[in-house]
């Protein structure tokens, strides 16, 4: 990178991890740019918190339903807004990332590259994609989507609602809905009592608050008379142009529930799109049916083996849920820890001396409940691979059967399957189908390891309008030297020489 950097650090994502990291870095005198897709800071967990606070008392009912853990984000948001030296750029998507610290951005119809000596990925998590029959029908949404509609849309579901899947978010959402007077017809959980027994063995004292919180949710839901079943399987959504019913197996019996909104959730996994595109190493986690970035404790990423676009050291760290799922407190702790590591690397004193040790301890403590939670809520909807008729690639509508047929026909590698069937070539660029395809390949070739990475990723990672690309700023003058295939024939082509 021969160009003058635009900042010391570029942080991607203004959720808890990104904000906490930015605050500590800026407080120590660094120039920090924060790029975030959303119109206001907070990430998914504190989504639209500022606006909802400002709109009181009209939002009092909503804020009270969302509970104290939502409002708790205000302190961090306030510090983020008040800290000088943070160049916060909302409404900005990141569509390219290079290990040398180059970040491609898009805001409205303007696009360009920014550069920094360090990049911190705080781009959070996504809900684990779990294909099941009918999951593309209108009226099937994720629990995260319903929460986002609560927070940012001030909307609550109405009609006949079924919640299905597993994970703490299901209970949290159900409890929030309960406070708003919304009563689901059924909470259909894939997790079983024996998962809890197994989980208890992994419970550490630091995980007790999480356990108590969960038991509180369960108790309140039970008192409210919300029907809940565990160990469900075989979820299907049925309907013509909208979901009309949900079918599932409970205690060995097939049941059908009339349904206007099926809310599904199968736990959350790190969002690895940016890390993967930058050529960073990922590792497949079988128990989690997902890839995770390979990082040191303080978030330093490493390059995947093989050739890379850029030379030199990897300037990227990964923090928060994008690194390890842990929730807001863990994200804040790790964001600060990563900031401390960067300051140490820059030989700048942290604003509070001795911070690095403390943030390290905080990271450990905040993640202490994870082994318990992971064991208590293993992947459920995604536990078994979908049957042949189920769509795996939502964008191109490719079924598991079509994928299995291509694999049987000799396509033994992710990118080959993509090229043959267009699986992963649609607008979402494989975000929803890559993990399932990787598992289908492993199903057919049990002697081979699961693909170490999703589909080969090339920029742009998110849609980039031609007009924005045409007018891009911040190009690398060396790289931008257009090398083109100069194959224009002479107008009077080789008149004598060659014919």
């Amino acid at each position, binding site marked *: 990178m021969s160009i003058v950097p635009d900042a010391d650090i570029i942080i991607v994502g203004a959720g808890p991890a990104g904000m906490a990291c930015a605050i500590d870095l800026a407080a120590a005198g660094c120039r920090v740019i924060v790029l975030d897709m959303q119109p206001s800071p907070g990430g998914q967990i504190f989504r639209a918190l500022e606006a909802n606070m400002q709109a009181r008392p009209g939002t009092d009912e909503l804020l009270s*339903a969302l509970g104290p853990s939502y409002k708790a984000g205000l302190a961090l948001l306030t510090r983020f807004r008040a800290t000088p030296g943070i160049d916060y750029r909302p409404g900005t998507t990141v569509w390219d990332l290079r290990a040398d610290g180059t970040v491609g951005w898009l805001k409205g119809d303007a696009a360009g590259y920014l550069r920094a000596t360090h990049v911190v990925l705080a781009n959070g998590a996504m809900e684990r994609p779990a294909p099941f029959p009918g999951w593309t029908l209108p009226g099937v949404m994720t629990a995260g989507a319903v929460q986002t509609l609560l927070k940012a849309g*001030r909307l609550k579901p109405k009609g006949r609602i079924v919640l299905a899947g597993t994970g703490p978010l299901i209970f949290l959402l159900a409890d929030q809905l309960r406070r*708003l007077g919304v009563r689901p017809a059924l909470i259909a959980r894939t997790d079983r009592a024996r998962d809890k027994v197994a989980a208890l063995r992994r419970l550490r004292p630091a995980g007790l608050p999480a356990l108590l919180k969960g038991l509180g949710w369960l108790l309140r839901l039970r008192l409210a008379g919300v029907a809940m079943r565990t160990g469900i399987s075989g979820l299907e959504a049925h309907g013509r142009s*909208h979901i009309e019913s949900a079918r599932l197996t409970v205690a060995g019996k097939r049941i059908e529930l009339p349904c206007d909104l099926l809310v599904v959730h199968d736990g959350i996994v790190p969002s690895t799109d940016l890390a993967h595109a930058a050529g960073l190493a990922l590792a497949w986690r079988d128990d989690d049916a997902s890839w995770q970035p390979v990082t040191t404790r303080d978030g330093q990423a490493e390059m995947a083996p093989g050739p890379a676009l850029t030379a030199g050291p990897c300037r990227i760290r990964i923090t928060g849920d994008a690194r390890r799922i842990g929730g807001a407190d863990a994200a804040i702790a790790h964001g600060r820890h990563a900031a401390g590591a960067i300051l140490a690397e820059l030989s700048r004193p942290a604003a509070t001396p001795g911070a690095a040790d403390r943030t390290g301890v905080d990271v450990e403590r905040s993640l202490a409940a994870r082994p318990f939670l992971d064991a208590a809520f293993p992947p459920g909807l995604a536990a078994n691979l979908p049957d042949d008729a189920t769509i795996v690639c939502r964008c191109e509508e490719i079924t598991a059967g079509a994928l299995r047929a291509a694999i049987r026909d000799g396509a033994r590698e992710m990118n080959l399957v993509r090229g043959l069937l267009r699986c992963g070539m649609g607008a*979402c660029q494989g975000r929803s189908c890559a993990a399932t395809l990787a598992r289908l390949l492993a199903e057919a070739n049990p002697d081979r390891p699961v693909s170490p990475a999703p589909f080969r990723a090339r920029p742009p990672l998110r849609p980039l309008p031609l007009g924005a690309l045409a007018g891009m700023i911040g190009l690398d003058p060396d790289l931008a030297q257009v090398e083109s295939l100069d194959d224009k024939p002479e107008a009077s082509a080789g008149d004598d020489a060659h014919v």
Partner: protein
Amino acid sequence: MFEPVGPAEATLTIYLDGRAIPARAGETVAACLLRAGITHFRTTPVSGAPRLPFCMIGHCFDCLIEIDGIGSRQACLSQVETGMRLRTQDGPARISGLELPGLDLQ
């Protein structure tokens, strides 16, 4: 499928396929249309199946819709603006400003 929590302070108007829809400043196009009870934002270019938002955080790309003449925009990442013109996206995106005469190669 959804209803407002508390008072819905619709202070501006957007248009879907010419129909006026009240909107609240600061909300996303997706939230606004779901409150209005819109049954689908688009149909897929592959099978023509109707779709509504699935993830609401920019991952699934099922909420694509035409906004102010530009197709395939993510409704969950776009904020409403006064007078915004939306169009249900049927199959592949339209290219606005394009007049399509009968193609002739002769």
